[in-house]
């Protein structure tokens, strides 16, 4: 113990000056970006939204914006079966030898957020609707690329008749999916992979459309020069990067003043603190853009707790947000990332094993919930973290199995 203390004291001699020095320089370097931030943010009507994301692809952006206006094919009553501009592909080579007794396998990236939980729940119910599926083997990668790579390998080498993959990340999972494609028909949904080997890739229109839906709403509803706060979950995730980079294009091309782009880690307390700080620092915030709605209610509460009216708000189709929007008569929009794609993935697998054709890229509709459609989606009997676009309302066990009353 004595020796440890002496050692610590020795190190401290060296550290003491250095540590205090680094504290000082920390403060200084902290001040510098602040100075530039106020110059950029406060001085001119257009805020500084930062550099263009390395994930931004103009072509995809244009495609997604165009797809928003295309009428999807199929029955609007079953949007999970609708498709936008499908290029149908023949799947007869994958037709199962038996008409039933199929083994369907699923490598899931994670169930670590309410959106994935609702989807996963819906997916299990969808499987039950198909008597042909004898076994449904699902493995949760717990948001780890490494685990998902070995999960996919294991499943592909097992006796799966078809493999559904919801990749954790795009680039890292691509080789694993490519290897699996050689052994079993693969259905990818949600995040994509950098290969066209899967039989079909199921996804809603995409992140750019999501981000632009919200940004356009703010452009229409916030007065010129209004102060916008953008809240993001975390950097570096492609599906979230596209949402922000899409919105950024819109904001840069507007006279709105983006006073801050902050990362919340999806943490409600942190979100609330950030919004409170901005309210105190800026005096007022005229609109809030978010790349996901999980902490939207916490962000709104920050306005309430500061005694300020809630400005135009971008959330998502999470039920707590929709409920608050309706009850408090707010001005808001909820872009969605159609949760019913979890159903579609199973339906695609069934079609493939029956040898029916599916689109090579199955683009699902991605409606944004607006004031006009809010009443159709909000449901006070469903739990706060339920997602309105689950597409699960017609399933046996609804609403109890989704936590509803």
């Amino acid at each position, binding site marked *: *113990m004595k020796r440890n*203390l*002496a050692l*610590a*004291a020795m*190190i*401290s*001699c060296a*550290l*003491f000056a250095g*540590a*205090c020095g*680094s*504290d000082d320089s*920390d403060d200084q370097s*902290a*001040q510098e*970006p*602040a100075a530039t*931030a106020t110059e950029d943010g406060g001085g001119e009507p257009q805020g500084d939204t930062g550099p263009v994301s390395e994930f931004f692809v103009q072509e995809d952006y244009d495609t997604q914006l165009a797809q928003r206006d295309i009428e999807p094919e199929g029955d609007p009553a079953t949007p999970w079966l609708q498709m936008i501009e499908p290029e149908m592909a023949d799947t007869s080579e994958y037709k199962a030898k038996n008409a039933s007794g199929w083994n369907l396998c699923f490598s899931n990236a*994670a*169930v*670590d*957020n*309410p959106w*994935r*939980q609702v989807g*996963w729940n819906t997916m299990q119910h969808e499987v039950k609707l198909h008597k042909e599926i004898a076994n449904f083997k699902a493995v949760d990668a717990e948001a780890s690329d490494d685990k998902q790579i070995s999960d996919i390998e294991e499943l592909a080498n097992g006796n799966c008749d078809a493999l559904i993959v919801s990749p954790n990340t795009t680039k890292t999972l691509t080789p694993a999916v490519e290897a699996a494609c050689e052994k079993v028909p693969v259905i990818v949904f949600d995040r994509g992979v950098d290969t066209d080997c899967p039989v079909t890739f199921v996804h809603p229109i995409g992140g750019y459309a999501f981000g632009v839906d919200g940004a356009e709403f703010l452009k229409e509803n916030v007065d010129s020069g209004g102060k916008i706060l953008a809240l993001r979950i975390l950097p570096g995730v492609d599906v979230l990067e596209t949402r922000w980079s899409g919105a950024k294009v819109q904001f840069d091309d507007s006279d709105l003043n983006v006073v*801050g782009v*902050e*990362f919340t*880690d*999806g*943490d*409600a*307390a*942190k*979100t*609330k*603190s*950030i919004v*409170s*700080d901005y309210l*105190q*620092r800026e005096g007022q915030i005229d609109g809030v853009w978010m790349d996901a709605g999980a*902490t939207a*209610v*916490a962000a709104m*509460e920050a306005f309430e*707790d*500061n005694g300020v009216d809630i400005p135009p708000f971008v959330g998502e189709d999470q039920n*707590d947000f929709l409920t608050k929007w309706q009850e408090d008569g707010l001005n808001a929009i909820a872009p969605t990332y159609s949760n019913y794609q979890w159903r579609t993935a199973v339906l695609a697998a069934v079609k493939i094993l029956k040898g029916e054709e599916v689109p090579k890229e199955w683009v699902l509709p991605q409606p944004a919930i607006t004031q006009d459609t809010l009443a159709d989606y909000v449901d006070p009997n469903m*739990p*706060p*973290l339920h997602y309105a676009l689950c597409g699960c309302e017609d399933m046996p066990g609804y609403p109890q199995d989704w*936590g509803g009353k």
Partner: protein
Amino acid sequence: MSATTPDAFETPVTSRSERVRKALVGTAPIFIVLFILLALIAIENPNFLEPPGFLAFLKRAAPLAILAAGQYFVIVSGEFDLSVGSIVTVVVVVAARLIDDDPSKTWPIIALLLAIGATVGVTNGLITTRLKVPSFITTLGMLLILSGAVFWWTGGAPRGALPDNFREIGRLGIQDFPVLEQLPWSVVILLVIGIGAILLMRASFGRRLMAVGDNESAARLSGVKVENMRTIAFVLSGLSAAVAGILLGGFAGVSAQVGQGLEFQAITAVVLGGVVLGGGRGTVLAAMAGALTLEALFTLLNLYGVSGALEDTVQGIIIIAAVAFASYRLRGAR
């Protein structure tokens, strides 16, 4: 350290003025740092000087300050408690699921939550003191067990909801309070716990606990039940984590990430307050001031527009610098 002499537990041998002087010298640095940070915040954001602005800050800092008070008891007795962050998460997730938006269940469940905190504390204490597992390992294990259990129970996303009367504790306060407009409940609770902790440390319990951390064998020889004292410290820490969880759940609502990293923030706060790792030194007031300082620093960084990602880095620098500073001072004193 006169307080550690075997016969000193019941009656302090130093005079009152001497004790006050020592306490002031011991806690002065952290209050100076805190004052400077608060002044910098006020320059950046003048609203901060008005009661509502400052109270909003205290309200936000209250859970961490309460955690720091709990952590102080454990650290001063010579141990660590890494499980507090996961207790906070457990408390919030369990509350949401069991109360499920039914206001009539709020108070019984709050009692249950406190019991959970205390139970985890007792378990940590017994494993550390009776099974002789170092507390670093015990509470790290507890952290993993609890976060795993939460994940298993919720599947990653919590279910249920917290009713308004539960949320009110962490979110609202006494309305129309003279001068302050609104006195947040969290600030009231923080004050009560702070005063309680200071009184506890001044009582014979506090001196015994200090002795356990300063020199275990000497304390044992003088008849202090070392194992019991440490177990009680863990219980206090577990209880403080439960209270912090109730406040955080109230402040921001249900989240399965709410407690992440709080254990390190609490330890940083205590260390920043000048409480030496390894036990036997420092005051609980300084530990709580350390929490306010840490929160002030985060607020300032946010006001300066520094990325939130740097918070961890800053925390790391602080914890090393503070311990280095403390041991430098100790060496000087000896």
